[in-house]
């Protein structure tokens, strides 16, 4: 099979066309900033925060009715009973671990 000068030029042009396409694709890939899973997730959170109807807790209608019907006001007696807690000192356990030479 013979190939003329015209054919040869044609193939060269096609080849360089593909070459340029691939090069631009690689360039595009290299230019794309790498995002870790962490970044993707936190970006998602802030994106959906912007789309919310209410953006401040005190605007939440369900919270307003909850305070009106049940809790009365923040840090009320009932809220202390249900929503607040106390903490336990667990340091003696860690100290005994230190004595036993575990940590």
């Amino acid at each position, binding site marked *: 099979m013979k190939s003329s000068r015209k054919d040869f030029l044609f193939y060269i042009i096609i080849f360089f066309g593909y070459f340029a396409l691939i090069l631009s694709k690689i360039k595009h890939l290299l230019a794309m900033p790498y995002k870790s*899973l962490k970044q993707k*997730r936190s970006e998602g959170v802030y994106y959906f925060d912007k789309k919310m109807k209410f953006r401040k*807790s005190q605007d939440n209608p369900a919270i307003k009715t909850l305070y009106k019907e049940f809790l009365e006001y923040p840090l009320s007696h009932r809220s202390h009973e249900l929503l607040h807690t106390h903490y*336990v000192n667990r340091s003696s356990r860690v100290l005994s671990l230190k004595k036993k030479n*575990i940590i």
Partner: protein
Amino acid sequence: MFITRKNLLKTSILFPFLISCNKYSKTEGIYVSNNVPNNNEYDQIYYLQVNQSKCHVCHSCAEVCPTGIINGKDKTPNTKHTIHHYDACVNCGQCLVNCPYGAIQEEVSFIRDIEKAINDKNKTVVAMPAPAVRYAIGEAFGYEPGFNTAGKMFSALRELGFDIIWDNEFAADLTVIEEGTELIHRITGKINKPLPQFTSCCPAWIKYIESFHPELIPHLSTCKSPIGMLGALAKTYGAKKINKNPQNIYTVSIMPCIAKKFEGLKPELSSSRYRDIDATINTRELAYMIKKAKIDYKNLNDTEADPFLGISTGAATIFGVSGGVMEAALRFAYEAVSGKILHTVEFESVRGEKGIREASVKINGHVLNVCVVSGLKNAQPIIEMATKGNSKYHFIEVMTCPGGCINGGGQPLDPDNSFIL
């Protein structure tokens, strides 16, 4: 054929997977034991443990462990890692999500308990999904990380047999108001407690303070975490609203976290006169339950949470990311103190990826100094300052997992990080 000890030994040698299948189930690449603890021994069990046969001694876990208990005292480079004692482990699960071999497994799971409760007709099963769960559960079903699939998750929960869905984002809003008011009262002197005030949302952080720095306990906000509040409200206010006996309500908290299993079993969380939180599962376990029930997650319709305890705001949805609690509290405190309406709600200075971020906010001429710690390993200087009493901050947010709850120990694993899956 009788089941004798010898027989059992034989089968376990011939078919080792049979025994392991019974005891452990695989949820999204992590083995989870089916052991359900009882209330009394909640602080005498392991929530995480290293499977010695799978540990390749790559030290990824030791790099992220905030207490160093996974290393132990005698660190030689070739000894396999193990969690030496449950008392010094804060159950954050960072070792588990960072292990490239999937060698660390969960030792506590409520899946069987929940299945039993769902099949019980007398019980009203309430699902309470956390803000961070909806941003990551999609990953198990082929969605992009960070895509909010809350509507589909609610539908999937209803198909699984949960009777009511009360959103934990609602409780996050409530936490902001209670914790913000507490902060204002501490600054003005209405409450006689020391500053700086630490957030109390992160159960691993709470356990760390309780065991390693008990002198800082008065600095912790007395507010429960959002799930503690929602559990108590579900069995009092919620039960009244839906006309159900709180005895028959079974609350399931769905969390991006392993330490929440520890928190849910605490005896302090029983202010509704019942156990406020009956069961706790994490994102991976929920994905496992949805896959096991063969629910077509991608083609579900979007639905909403149930009324009364179901509406949420933007301030609640950012609870999942480090700095979110702080930003939500600032949005509240600004309006509560100044009485003016806040128009630009974004506080960019508390966002970002640094381990310690600080900001000063001017409200009515007063300066409020706040600090955000992302990752318990970065909290050391802040803790030292607070112990010495020379801290300039008023409010400090600490999240044990770097980046906040969205990267918690119960979230789907990072496919870039693992050699298995």
